[in-house]
Structures are given as structure tokens and as C-alpha cells.
């Protein structure tokens, strides 16, 4: 095939290709294009090549700039609507105890979340707590102290600065003491993990203590032993807020215990020995089925859902 014929084919292919993408191609013109495409294989090849190039150009800097521009516009719209700083609580359960009837101490405030619920709360001193699913804290604040007892689950604390009143979170026999910062406390069956997003935090029990700064975390097991202080390299701080979970060398028992707080239907183990298997995984809650399928491939753990919606894991 001669070069001039090639060039003529490309020229015609470009014209027809442009005509369709202009959005101004009528039915008669479409028929004309189809006739031309049928006439020679080379016509269809050139035409297809132009379309491939056009679609691949979407992934060029033009596409990237368009995406970034749209994000910038959306961000401006959000600020304009005044949505910054909004705190929404899905379900709030506040119960006042009367155990301090012989003193002038205000009764502690109690915050509880239901299964599958994540909620934000504002404390009297302006600090904020975000509670994960099925979590439970008691808060005691007066002009001398700011004390929280975390009884269950996961919580993020954004603590307002107050040098005169340290903010202390007690979890089992572990105390987390701060002056003003953002940190996360995960209470598990056999451990307590504290991770700091901003500021300084002191974690202590009767035998040991650690001072943590931003991006550092420590785990205290049920024997009161502290792990080495770890540095969180990736952006996984408090991922459970977005219903994303990252488990590193974690037993299936602990994984199911966490997931069961965030799901309405339970996951149960047909045999306890399944719970002892250790897994590294990262997934969103709505990807649970994929995680279970992967367990089947990697550990030969089968799963099924019974008539009541409970997921069973079995060997």
C-alpha cells in the first residue's frame, strides 16, 4: 500500500473520527462512516487507532489536571457551605450516675455507642471524643481533673490544651496522660494500644511507662508488658472511622472480635483453634466477603452464612 494512500486513509479516518466526537454527526453521516469502515480493513484499523489514542489521552496530564481542578472546586464549595467543624452524633446515650452524692463532684458522663455505630461527642472542656462501634467511656471533669475511663472499644481523643488539668484516660490498669493532643486508644481482649497523631502522650501502668510523640504507638498486653515503641509509617491512624481495618500478625479471634462490633450480624468460629491462626490483612468492612474468600484460599477456612445471617468460619 503506497504512502499517499496511507495518508489519505488517515486523513479520512481523522475527519470521520472528529465528526462523531463533535456530537454533530447525523444518522446519514453515521451510515456513510460505517460504509467507509466496511470498505477496507485498513480503514477500520486507522479508525480504531485514533479512538485508542483519544481514550489513552485521558490518562495524560490533561486528565490529571482536570481531576485536581474539580477537587479544588469541591473543596471551595464545602467551605462556602460552612460545613467545617461540624460534629454529628448518630446516637447519644448519656446517663448520669449518682454515686458521688456525698461530695460536690459532678456525676460522670457516660457515652456509649451501639453495634456498628461511630459517633462524636463534645466534652465540657471542649475536648472531643470519637467512639468506635460498641464502645463505652465514662468522663469525669471538674476544675481540678479531666478523667476518662475507657471501658470498651475504640476511641480517638482530641484534647484541648490545659496545663493545669492533665487529661487522663484509664484503660484497665493503663493510664494515658496528656496536656493537649490527638491520640487513639484501642482496647482489645488481651491488649491496649495507644497511638498518637499529634502532641505528646505518657502511657503508664504500675510497672512501666513510655512517652510517645506523633506517629508513635505502643501496645500493653494483659500481663502489663509494654511493646517496643513503634513508628506508624503509613496513614492508618484511626482507620476504623472510615470502616477500614488493618491487622498485622493478628489472630482471627481478635479480628472477628473487632469486626463483630462494627457489623450487625456476627462472625463466629466453628472451632476455637481457627481463632489462633494469625493473619495480615487490610480491608474495608464492605470488602469482608473478599477477605473471607482469601482466607479460604490461604488457610483453607471455609465460610457460610446461616439462616439468621451469622457468618460461620470452619475448617
Amino acid at each position: 500500500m503506497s504512502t499517499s494512500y496511507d495518508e489519505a486513509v488517515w486523513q479520512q479516518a481523522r475527519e470521520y473520527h472528529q465528526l462523531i466526537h463533535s456530537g454533530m454527526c447525523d444518522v446519514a453521516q453515521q451510515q456513510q462512516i460505517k460504509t467507509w469502515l466496511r470498505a477496507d480493513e485498513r480503514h477500520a484499523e486507522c479508525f480504531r487507532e485514533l479512538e485508542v489514542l483519544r481514550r489513552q489521552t485521558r490518562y495524560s496530564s490533561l486528565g490529571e489536571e482536570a481531576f485536581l481542578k474539580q477537587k479544588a472546586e469541591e473543596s471551595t464549595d464545602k467551605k462556602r457551605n460552612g460545613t467545617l467543624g461540624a460534629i454529628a452524633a448518630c446516637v447519644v446515650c448519656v446517663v448520669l450516675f449518682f454515686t458521688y452524692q456525698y461530695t460536690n463532684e459532678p456525676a460522670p458522663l457516660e457515652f456509649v455507642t451501639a453495634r456498628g455505630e461511630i459517633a462524636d461527642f463534645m466534652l465540657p472542656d471542649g475536648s472531643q471524643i470519637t467512639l468506635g462501634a460498641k464502645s463505652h467511656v465514662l468522663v469525669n471533669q471538674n476544675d481540678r481533673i479531666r478523667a476518662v475511663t475507657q471501658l470498651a472499644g475504640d476511641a480517638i481523643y482530641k484534647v484541648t490544651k490545659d496545663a493545669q488539668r492533665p487529661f487522663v484516660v484509664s484503660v484497665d490498669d493503663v493510664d494515658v496522660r496528656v496536656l493537649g493532643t490527638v491520640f487513639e486508644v484501642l482496647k482489645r481482649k488481651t491488649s491496649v494500644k495507644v497511638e498518637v497523631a499529634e502532641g505528646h502522650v505518657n502511657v503508664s501502668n504500675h510497672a512501666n511507662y513510655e512517652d510517645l510523640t506523633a506517629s508513635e504507638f505502643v501496645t500493653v498486653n494483659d500481663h502489663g508488658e509494654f511493646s517496643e515503641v513503634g513508628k506508624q509509617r503509613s496513614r492508618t491512624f484511626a482507620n476504623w472511622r472510615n470502616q477500614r481495618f488493618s491487622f498485622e500478625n493478628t489472630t482471627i479471634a481478635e479480628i472477628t472480635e473487632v469486626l463483630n462490633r462494627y457489623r450487625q450480624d456476627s462472625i463466629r468460629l466453628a472451632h476455637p483453634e481457627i481463632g489462633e491462626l494469625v493473619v495480615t490483612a487490610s480491608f474495608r468492612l464492605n470488602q469482608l466477603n473478599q477477605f473471607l474468600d482469601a482466607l479460604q484460599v490461604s488457610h483453607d477456612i471455609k465460610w457460610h452464612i446461616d439462616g439468621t445471617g451469622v457468618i460461620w468460619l470452619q475448617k
Partner: protein
Amino acid sequence: MIVLMKSKFFDQLYQQYWPELCVRLQARFGAGPPDPEDIAQQAFCKYSELCNEQRIDNPKAFIYTVARNLFIDQFRRIDKQQQVMDQIFEELDIAPVYEDSAEQSALQTERNALIEKAISTFSEKQKQLMTMSIIEGKSYRQIAQETGLPIANISRTITAAQTLLDQTIRTWEYDGSVDNVTYLLKEGSGQ
């Protein structure tokens, strides 16, 4: 989602590159939505699917490009003209376009570099109109309404830009050389 990486190389790559990738993506594309970690995971998944079928010389660059393309996919608009094209392909039994997925596009590093080189010579007007046509999927009438430009002017501008793009790629494919690109770029960069 990535669970129990079986290949030792993949495991090491994931451990080493995952944190850096998340930081890079967040720095470039923001905190989300879409969540940079979600995108990073999808990119690793696509790499794990492809790396057994073909050699990928630079896994980190490939994974980053796929992640970037997945962000761009979030901007996809319904392109009626593309739907017409797909119908024509189907009716005439022309192979459908599959090369435009995030990962397939990421494999074509040389081709992508040439596309970028051609785009770098576009005038602002050409970039604007090409973005409205190709990225946003707008018809020339819609572009005319938004920009106030005559349709004929829009057509000429886009035609010149697309001709430059396609001639750049064709020259590279037929000659196996990028030396001629400079000549073509000088010739085709006007409106």
C-alpha cells in the same frame, strides 16, 4: 484488598513501597475521597494480577501510574459520543477498545511519554478545548456554549491538536525513533 502476599518479592515490595505510595498519593491528590489508601490497594492488586503475565521493568513506577490513573478515572464523565463509537465497533465487529484501562495505559510508558511531549507544546486554548472534548466528553456545541467560541474555530483547534498527537505516535511506531518528533512538534503546534 491484599491478604497474605504469597510471593516474597511482592511481599517485600508491598512492605517497602506502600507507605511511600500513600504519602505520595495524598500529597498529590489530597486526603480523599477517594481515599488514597483505597486507590493504593487497588493499584497493588492490579500489579499482582499483571506481573505474572508480563514483565514489568519498574514495578514502583507502574504501581504509581496505575494509582494516578485510578484517581483520574474518578473524574470520568458520561461521554455520549464514546457510546456511539462503541456501538459502531460492535455493529461492525471491530475489536472493542481495551487499552484504555488504568493498568493497560500504565504499561505503555513510551507511548505515554510521547503523548505528554505533544501535549506540552499545545497552546492554552488547545489544552482547554482538548480537556473539554476528551476528558469531559463534551460535544462541540456544549463547548461553544461554555466558551463562546464559534464551532468552526473549536473544530479547527481540536483537529490540529489531535493530528499532532496521532502523527507523533505514528511516527514513533513506524520509524522506531523519536528524533522526528521535534520536527512534527514545530510544524503542528499552531492553532
